[in-house]
């Protein structure tokens, strides 16, 4: 059968379209059978009959090929309906914004939230941590696109250290994806179910090579990025392009943006690698030679060593770093700081952002009405006359607890200075109260310290991976070690330490641990009740009542109301007791089977007693009958006699 030319063309086009539509059909079928991941940022759930959004911890998986090893978000619970006095601030960025190496509380978003709420009790300040390790401006811009459901009022950014090696970083994948547009296209394609299915299939067919030995010299060599190289410049340009993308999204959402300048360990972190012209040179050996001479105070030897390096490897990060060390030793911290910053910028393993990243951040903020938050400047001021080092950092970029506090304080000041936030309590008073009451626990510090030790037993901190072992010498260390090895959850470890310190009559420490749990689970009544019990054991009835009354209406928990009522009974404050006990009664009557019979019995006895004492006999009669009919209780004459 002959087909006319126009028909041929039409049929060919139809066939091609049919081929393409097959993919849409496949995608639709995969969606129908849920054969891929949707990656929604929030999940809806109800806790104690109240609606919340829970942040999907697995959301960042979509940025990583291996889901098993992909970093996660923190647990965050946000009320689904934003209250009129509630303010929400999003924090986006990499591991420093996430709070590595700490699990909870010792993070700058947590500390900032604590400061904001203490300084302005009229509002509820909710700082939502949407940061995670190993992501950069590409992922941050993608995450931000999903956040309008959270109704944020402001955005805080602290990012830039991961632009090379983070997910979609220019040096974390093969060449060809240093292109900004191509990377964003890839991010879009990765969302399709078809892509996910194909990727899973390819992972089976072409499994990962054994990467247990990450010290493949060649791989490392390929990932070294000299200062000012085309890859370096292109990556910085892509970072700025992503800032523009974030700016557009934030503008659409109508929220102000606060971006922190990037800080890192300059003084105590030897460059990870130097760009030696002579590949046979070993940085660690050379540095050992230098420190040997410096420790012997052999100034002639040191100066000769520096001159030789100047001759052989003038552009090496190691030379700049050793010059810094020598100037420090000579008592010239200002010039030392210059060399330390230079050493960081020349470090060809780019785990720390260079100085010009901050130049870009400052300029971008100025030109686009963002607030530039002087994190790096503050770290320098606090460390002066020296450059920031181990006084504030664990290793190359992650701050210690004092460093994280400094970050929180700096963001807090910027929020205040810009007029976005107004503290009702004088700043000095707020700060000293915060420093004494914020629950930093020995467990959290130890777990963080061990995490850092484990990290630093591997490349690139050491040339050969060392086995990491630890022998706990006390209970805190035991729980920290068990937690680190995944043998116990954070909550269980902390609760065990509460019990441990109560048994040892170390009430202050027990309170610190309970408060630490409270900070992490602000919507749970159990830690509040436990804290009140500890205070009652110490005969601090006023404080216990204060703790309960602060949250009773918002939590509306029957156990909490009952405890509050029972305290009022002890204080002969019967009207207050009746109010609290009736609150508990109302909740219990809605769902009687959910509560323990002892608790119900105690509630009705107290309520009956309080009503009788205050002469509200009709109500007492109703309560008595209700207790008999609904709960088969027998409020006996003893109660009545006691009451009278």
């Amino acid at each position, binding site marked *: 059968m002959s087909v006319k030319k126009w028909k041929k063309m039409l049929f060919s086009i139809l066939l091609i379209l049919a081929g393409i539509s097959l993919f849409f059909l496949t995608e639709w079928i995969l969606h129908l059978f849920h054969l891929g991941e949707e990656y929604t940022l929030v999940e809806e759930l109800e806790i104690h009959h109240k609606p919340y959004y829970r942040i999907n911890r697995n959301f960042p998986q979509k940025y990583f090929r291996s889901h098993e090893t992909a970093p996660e978000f923190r647990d965050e619970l946000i009320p689904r309906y934003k209250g009129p006095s509630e303010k929400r601030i999003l924090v986006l960025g990499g591991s420093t914004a996430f709070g590595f190496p700490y699990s909870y509380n010792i993070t700058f978003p947590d500390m900032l939230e604590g400061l904001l709420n203490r300084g302005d009790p009229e509002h509820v300040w909710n700082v939502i941590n949407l940061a995670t390790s190993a992501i950069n401006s590409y992922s941050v811009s993608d995450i931000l696109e999903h956040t309008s459901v959270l109704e944020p009022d402001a955005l805080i950014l602290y990012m830039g250290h991961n632009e090379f090696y983070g997910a979609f970083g220019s040096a974390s994948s093969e060449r060809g994806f240093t292109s900004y547009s191509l990377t964003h296209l890839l991010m879009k394609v990765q969302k399709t179910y078809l892509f996910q299915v194909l990727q899973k299939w390819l992972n089976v067919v072409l499994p990962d090579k054994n990467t247990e030995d990450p010290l493949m010299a060649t791989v490392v060599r390929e990932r070294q990025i000299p200062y000012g190289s085309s890859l370096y410049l292109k990556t910085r340009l892509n970072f700025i392009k992503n800032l523009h993308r974030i700016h557009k999204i934030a503008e659409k959402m109508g929220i102000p943006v606060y971006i922190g300048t990037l800080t890192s360990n300059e003084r105590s972190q030897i460059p990870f690698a130097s760009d030696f012209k002579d590949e046979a040179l070993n940085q660690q050996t050379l540095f050992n030679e230098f420190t040997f001479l410096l420790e012997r105070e052999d100034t002639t030897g040191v100066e000769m060593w520096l001159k030789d390096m100047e001759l052989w490897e003038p552009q090496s990060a190691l030379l700049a770093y050793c010059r810094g060390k020598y100037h420090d030793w000579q008592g010239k911290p200002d010039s030392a700081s210059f060399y330390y910053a230079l050493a960081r910028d020349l470090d060809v393993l780019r785990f720390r952002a260079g100085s010009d990243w901050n130049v870009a951040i400052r300029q971008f903020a100025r030109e686009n009405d963002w607030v530039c938050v002087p994190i790096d400047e503050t770290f320098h001021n606090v460390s002066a006359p020296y450059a920031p080092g181990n006084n504030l950092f664990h290793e190359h970029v992650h701050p210690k607890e004092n460093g994280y506090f400094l970050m929180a304080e700096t963001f807090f000041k910027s929020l205040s200075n810009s007029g976005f936030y107004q503290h009702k309590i004088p700043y000095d008073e707020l700060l000293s109260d915060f420093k004494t009451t914020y629950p930093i626990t020995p467990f959290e510090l130890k777990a963080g310290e061990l*995490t850092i030790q484990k990290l630093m037993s591997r490349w690139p901190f050491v040339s050969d991976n060392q086995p990491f072992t630890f022998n706990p010498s006390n209970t805190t260390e035991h729980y920290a070690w068990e937690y680190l090895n995944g043998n116990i959850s954070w909550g269980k470890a902390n609760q065990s330490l509460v019990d441990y310190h109560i048994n040892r009559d170390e009430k202050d420490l027990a309170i610190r641990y309970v408060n630490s749990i409270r900070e992490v689970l602000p919507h749970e009544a159990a830690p509040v009740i436990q804290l009140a019990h500890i205070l009652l054991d110490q005969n601090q009835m006023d404080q216990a009542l204060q703790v309960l009354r602060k949250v009773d209406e918002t939590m509306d928990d029957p156990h909490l109301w009952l405890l509050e009522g029972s305290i009022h009974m002890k204080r002969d404050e019967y009207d207050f007791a009746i109010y609290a006990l009736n609150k508990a009664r109302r909740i219990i009557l809605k769902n009687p089977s959910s509560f323990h019979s002892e608790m119900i019995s105690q509630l009705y006895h107290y309520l009956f007693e309080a009503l009788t004492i205050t002469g509200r006999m009709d109500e007492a009669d109703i309560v008595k009958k209700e207790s008999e009919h609904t709960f088969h209780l027998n409020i006996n004459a003893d109660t009545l006699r006691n009451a009278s």
Partner: protein
Amino acid sequence: MGKWTIIKEFFQYARENKRYLILPIVMILLLLGVIIIFSQGSALAPFIYALF
């Protein structure tokens, strides 16, 4: 009657010119494959996530 003839003609044409149908499938699969292979994360990445 004419409508059925066109559909018959189309299927006849499709049988004789399968390449037009297969070409976009192969092209898209190839493109996705290339993207997947080229976007394989750094071999180092999972081990150094904590670094950054």
